[in-house]
C-alpha cells in the first residue's frame, strides 16, 4: 500500500513539474509487468497506466515549443486513452480485483477524494482539446502504430509540406545572401511560396469556421506553424510590405465636411417657428360665454 502511495505521489509531482526525469518512475515502469490486458493484475495495471501518463506528459512538454503536440503525442495519447478506457469500463473481466477485494475500478478511482487518476486524465484531455488535436487527423488516425508520427489529414499534410518548402527557401536565401541585401532577396524569392501558404492556411481555417464556430477550430499544430512562419516573415526577415496609404484621406475629410455643412445649412435654412400659446382659463377672465353652462340670458350677462 505504501508503495502504491509513493507511486501516486511521484506521478502527481511529475504532472505538476512537467518533467520526466524521475528515475524512480522509470524504474517502476520498467519493472511493471507487460502482460496482456486480459485479466491484468490491478496493481500491474496501475503501473502501466502511470507509465503511459508519464510518457504522455513528457511528450506534451517536449512538443510544447515549437508546437507539434498533436502529431508527436498522438500515439502516446492513444495508448493512455486506451488504458484509461479499460479502467473506466472495467467490469471485473479484464482486470482482476484489487488486493483488498474490491473491484479494480473502484479501488483505483473511488476510494479517496483527491482522485489522482481522474485528474490526470482531465488534465491531459483538456490540453488535447485546447489544441484541437482531433481536427488534425482523418478519422481513422491515418496511421498504424508502426509509424513514428501519425499522418495529418491530407489537406493539412499539404499545408505542412508547403511550410517545409518555405522554410527551406528561407534557409537557402538567408544563408546565401550577404547581410545588407539578405532580407530583400529572401522576400523576393520566397514571396510566392509565402502567399500561397497564407492562402492555403486561410482556406483551411475558413473551412473549419464554416463547419461550426463553437466546436471546430483548426488543428493547433498548423496554426502555430503558420504563426511562426508569419513571425519569421515579418519580424526576422522584415518582409512585410504594408505601407500606410493616404488614399482614403480625401474621402474621410469629405465625410466630415458634409456633416458640418449639413448642420450649418440646417441652421441657415431653419425657419422661425411661431408657437401658439394656449392659456388656461382661470378665474379672472370670463370673457367668453361658451364655456359656461347655457342658462338664461341674464346668467350669461352676469358672467360677462
Amino acid at each position, binding site marked *: 500500500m505504501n508503495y502504491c502511495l509513493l507511486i501516486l505521489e511521484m506521478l502527481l509531482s511529475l504532472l505538476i513539474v512537467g518533467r520526466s526525469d524521475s528515475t524512480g518512475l522509470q524504474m517502476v515502469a520498467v519493472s511493471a509487468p507487460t502482460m496482456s490486458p486480459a485479466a491484468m493484475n490491478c496493481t500491474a495495471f496501475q503501473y502501466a497506466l502511470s507509465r503511459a501518463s508519464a510518457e504522455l506528459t513528457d511528450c506534451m512538454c517536449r512538443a510544447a515549443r515549437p508546437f507539434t503536440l498533436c502529431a508527436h503525442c498522438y500515439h502516446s495519447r492513444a495508448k493512455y486513452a486506451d488504458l484509461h478506457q479499460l479502467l473506466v469500463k472495467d467490469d471485473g473481466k479484464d482486470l482482476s480485483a484489487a488486493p483488498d477485494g474490491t473491484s479494480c475500478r473502484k479501488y483505483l478511482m473511488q476510494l479517496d477524494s483527491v482522485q489522482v487518476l481522474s485528474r490526470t486524465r482531465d488534465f491531459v484531455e483538456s490540453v488535447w482539446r485546447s489544441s484541437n488535436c482531433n481536427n488534425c487527423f482523418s478519422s481513422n488516425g491515418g496511421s498504424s502504430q508502426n509509424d513514428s508520427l501519425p499522418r495529418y489529414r491530407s489537406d493539412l499534410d499539404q499545408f505542412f509540406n508547403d511550410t517545409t518548402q518555405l522554410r527551406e527557401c528561407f534557409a537557402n536565401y538567408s544563408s546565401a545572401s550577404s547581410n545588407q541585401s539578405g532580407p530583400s532577396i529572401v522576400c523576393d524569392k520566397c514571396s510566392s511560396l509565402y502567399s500561397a501558404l*497564407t492562402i492555403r492556411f486561410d482556406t483551411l481555417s475558413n473551412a473549419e*469556421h464554416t463547419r*461550426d*464556430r*463553437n466546436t471546430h477550430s483548426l488543428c493547433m499544430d498548423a*496554426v502555430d506553424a*503558420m*504563426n511562426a*512562419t*508569419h*513571425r519569421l*516573415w*515579418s*519580424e526576422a526577415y522584415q518582409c*512585410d510590405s*504594408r505601407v*500606410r*496609404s493616404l*488614399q*482614403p484621406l*480625401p*474621402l*474621410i475629410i469629405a*465625410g*466630415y465636411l*458634409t*456633416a458640418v455643412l*449639413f*448642420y450649418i445649412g*440646417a*441652421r441657415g*435654412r*431653419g425657419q*422661425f*417657428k*411661431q*408657437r*401658439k*400659446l*394656449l*392659456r*388656461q*382659463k*382661470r*378665474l*379672472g*377672465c*370670463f*370673457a*367668453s360665454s*361658451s*364655456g*359656461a*353652462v*347655457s*342658462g338664461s340670458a341674464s*346668467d350669461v350677462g*352676469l*358672467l*360677462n
Partner: protein
Amino acid sequence: MSDENLGSVQYGRPSQVPFGSLTGGAPQQHQVRHRQLNNPAGTAASAAAAAGVPAASSSRPRATSDYGSIRASALHQARLRIESDVDCVSYAPDVTVEGTERQRLVDNSGEWYFESQHAVSGEELLSAKFESLDYDTCENSLWAAEDQSRTVWDLRRIELCRWLVHLLIGVVTGAIAFFIDVCIEQLAKVKYRYMKSMLDRCIFHDCLIYALLLWIAFNFIFVLIASCLTVFGEPVAAGSGIPQIKCFLNGIQVPRVVRLRTLVCKVLGVLFSVVGGLAVGKEGPMIHSGSVVGAGLSQGRAASFKFDLGIFEYFRTDAEKRDFVSGGAAAGVAAAFGAPVGGVLFALEEGASFWNQGLTWRIFFSSMTSSFTLAFLLGFYRGIPNDLSNPGLISFGKFDKLDYDLLHLAIFACMGVVGGLSGALFNTLNEHLTKFRHRYVTSKLGQLTEAVLVASITAVTSFVLIYTVRSCQPLGSDQMEYPVQMYCPDGKFSSMAALLFQTPEAAVRSLLHDPVGTYSVTGLIAFCLPYLLIATWTYGVMVPSGLFIPSLLIGAAWGRGVGIGLNLLFPTHFTDPGKFALIGAAAQLGGIVRMTISLSVILIEATGNVLFGLPIMVVLMVAKWVGDYFGTGIYDMHIELASVPLLPWEPPSRSAAVSAQAVMSSPVTCLYRQERVSRIVEILRAEPHNGFPVVSGDLGPGTFGTFEGLVTRNQLICLLDMRLFDDGDPNFHLANPVSLSDFRRVYPRFPSVRQLQLSEADLMKSVDLGRYMNPAPYMVLHTCSLARIFRLFRGLGLRHLVVIDHRNQVVGLVTRKDLARFRATHTGDLKELQFTG
C-alpha cells in the same frame, strides 16, 4: 382635443391684491410669489400676459374684480393677435424661437418688471396635444349592473384571462427578441465578412478608399431603411421608446405609441440601425416592442387591420391596458438582457407610475416567460436545444471569477464618480443637440439625411480609428469571427478593428472578457472619446435606437483602460481588467440613465454573477448621485424636451400655499342631467375638452351649478352614436338596454363628433345623462392646496378633478395640464410653464 377647459382668461397677473385672496397667504407676500410663478416661463409668460390684457379689461368678471391688469409695453400691444373667434384661446405675440429681443413688462406700480434676453423656445413649453388616459373607473349605473351580474366563475375567468394574456405577452416578446437577435447576427455576418475580405485585399492593392466606400455604403443603406421606416412609417418609433412608455404609464396618451404599425417599424428599424453600424443597441426598442405587444394582445384585436378576435373584451379600458403595458415593458427588458428580475424592477423603477402587489406577480410572470422563451429559441438556434442553463445564453457572458476587496470598492466608487460626470456630459451634449434638432432639423428629408449622415460618419470614424491606432494582437488570442489585419504584421490582427468589426453588443462582450493584453490604454482612450461623441450624436436621430449598449460600451472601454492602467502601476495587483470594464460600463450607464436597482439586477443577471452585486450597486448609486447634481437622466430630459406634461412623483416644492382656485381651470363647460342632443353636439364640436361636469340648479356668481356627476366626451359620443335619446321617457332604458361592453366596443378609437350621423329630429331630442355619468367622481374643495391635489391626482391616476365650493357648486376643473404646468425651479421656487397648441 385637449382634456381641459383652456381659455383666453389670462392667468392672474396680480398687481394690487391678487394672490393673497386666493391662496390665503398674507397680502404683503403676494409680490414674491407672483414673481415666482411668472418668471421662469420666460418671456412667454410676460408676452402672454400682455396678450390677455384687452380681453380682461373689456370684460372683467365681478367675481374676480380684485385682479388688476398688467399694462404691457406698446410694442407688445401692437403685436397682439387676439383671435376672437377662438374662445378662450389667445395667441401670444409672435414668439420666435430664436429671438433675442429684450422684452419688458412693467406693472401698475412700476416696480416690477421682467426682461429677458431670449424668447421662449419650444423646450420651455408644454404641449397641449397630449391627452390623459382614463385610469379611473366610471362607476355609473351600467358599471354597477355589470359588476352585480358577474358570477364567481366570471371573475375567475377574467383572472385566468389576465394571467393568460401575461403569458402570451412573454412568449411573443421573447419571440420578437429572438427574431431581432437572429436577423442582426445573420446580417452582421454578411456585412463584416464582405468588409473584412475587402480590407484584406485593399491593403495590398492600395484600394482602401473602396473599402471605406463599401463600409459607408453598407451603413448608408441599412440606416436608410431604418430611417425610412421611422420617418415615413411611424415617427413615434424613433429613439429608444423608454421615454414614451414612461409617459404612457404615467397616464399620458402618446399618440400612436402602442399601435401595431409602430411595433413593426420599431422591430425592423432597430434591426437595420444596429446592422447599419450605428452606436445603438436593441434594448430600448425591445422594451417599447414589449409594451406594444402588451397593449395589443390584451385587446384581442388589431384595430389597424380591422381584426377582432372578440376575446379579452373586458380588458378594453385604459386602466387594464396600463397593467399589460407594464408587463410588456418588463418582458422587453427580460428578453433584451436575459434578466427576468431586472425586467420587473425596471418596470417598477423607470416605467410604471402605478403599482400593486398583484401586478408584480403578473409582470414577473411575463418577464420570466419572455426571458425563457428567448433562451429556449436561442438554444435551438445555437445547436444546444433544451439546455436552458448554458452559459452561452447569458447576455454579457459569464464571469468565472470576480473577486474584490475594500480597496477595489474604493476604486470602483471613484469610477462611479467618473461615470456620473461623463454621463452628465453625455446628457448635456445630447440636450443641446436635441434642442437644435427640434428647431432646425424638422423636415422629413432633413431627418432622413441626418440619419444616413450619422451612419456614414460612424463608418468613417471607425475607419479612421482602425487606420490610425496601431494595436496588434497575435491571432487566436481572441475568439473573434473576423480578425482584420490592417497594418499589423502577418499573424496578428488589429484589436481596434476587432472592437469595431462587430455589433456594439458583441463589442461589450469582448471588452468584458477578452484576455489581458488584448487592448492598450491608448487604444481604449482613442476608442472611447470618439465613440462617446458619436453615441451622443446618434441618440435622437430618426431611427429606433437603444441607449444601453452604447453606454455600456463607452464605459467598458474606459473601465478596461483604468484596469490596465492600474495593472501597469501595480503589476502584482489588478490583474483582471475585465471586472474594471464591467464596473466602468455600469458607471457610464448609471450616469446616463440614472437607474439604480433595476440596472444593478440587470447587470448581475446579464453577467451571471451575484457576488459581484455590491460593487455594481455602489457604483450605480455613486454615478447617480454625481450625475443628478448636474441634471436629470436622459429619459426625463427627453420627456421634458418633448413638452410632455408628465407628473413627477412628488408635488413641486413650495406648493402648499397655492390653492385649488389658483390652479383650476374656470369657467367650466357643464351639462345638465337631462340634456338636449343639439347642445351636446354643439359643445362637443366647439370644445376640445374631455370631461364635463353634470350639474343642476342655477348658476351663482363665479359658479356653474350644483355638482351631480361627471361625464366624459367618449361616453357622450357613444350615447350619440347609439342614439340613446330617451326624451324624458322613464321606460326608455327597459326597451333599449345597453351595457358597458357597448361602450368598450369602440375603445380606444372613438369616432369624432363630426363623424356622427344625426338627423334634425335626433337633434331635437334629449338624453338622460344621469344613467351614464360617473355619479361619484373625485372632487376637492376650492380651498384645497396644490400639493394635496397633486398627490390625489398622481396617486389615483385621475384625469379630471372637479373643484367645488362649500355649497357644492362647481367652480372649476383640474386636469393634468393644470398640475403639470407647475414645476419647481432648481432653486426650489415654483414656476409655471405655458402650453402650446
